[in-house]
């Protein structure tokens, strides 16, 4: 499913740092609205460029982007060095 929350944490060495739970679902809503608006133009561009090749690719953008975002949940990146602790996690 789509990740609903993104956890972002940055903590400089010796300091308290910032931990943020961001409702990333808001970004998906805005993104889908934008993509919906662009859909007719994408379809038109796909039809116009169908013979030269990119048309099929343009049509594939939507399902592939959907697939990537859908499977983003569970991604966890955490790094720690001498200066900072950084964590980005999608849930």
């Amino acid at each position, binding site marked *: 499913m789509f990740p609903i929350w993104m956890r972002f944490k940055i903590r400089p060495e010796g300091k308290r740092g910032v931990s943020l739970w961001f409702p990333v679902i808001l970004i998906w809503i805005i993104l889908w609205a934008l993509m919906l608006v662009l859909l007719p133009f994408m379809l038109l561009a796909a039809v116009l460029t169908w013979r030269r090749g990119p048309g099929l690719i343009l049509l594939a953008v939507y399902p592939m982007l959907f*697939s990537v975002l859908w499977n983003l949940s569970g*991604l*966890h*990146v*955490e*790094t*720690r*060095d001498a200066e900072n602790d950084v964590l980005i996690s999608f849930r």
Partner: protein
Amino acid sequence: MNEEHRKILEMLKEGKISVADAEKLLAAVGGPGTEAPAAPGGKPGWKYLRVLVEPGPGSESQDKVNIRVPMKLIRAGLKFAALIPQAAQGKVNVALKEKGLNVDLMKISPQDLEDLVANLNDMTVEVDGKDKVRIFCE
């Protein structure tokens, strides 16, 4: 059941080894319980690819990296990579070659990934005796 498993079980049946010994031997040869639960397709049901970088004994820095990537995301990303225009594909490959990776990304298919993951149990790489990089699936 392969030949090694059969021999161990026969030794157990004949009383040559104890149950505890049989368990150890089965674990050593990759017996039941040492692998991931199989998915319906018969392949291991790995959900995540994990990459852990930890400082080794000879490392001065205390840098740590802990990455968990869903396998489905990798598969989706591979499909997405197919959308890279032909002109850009060449540039990507040249850039990878400059970094020492002589790999054509566009030729990596989802099946290649499945094969790689199926054979990737738990790999630990030590970089110049400093950092330990552990790559495994869970």
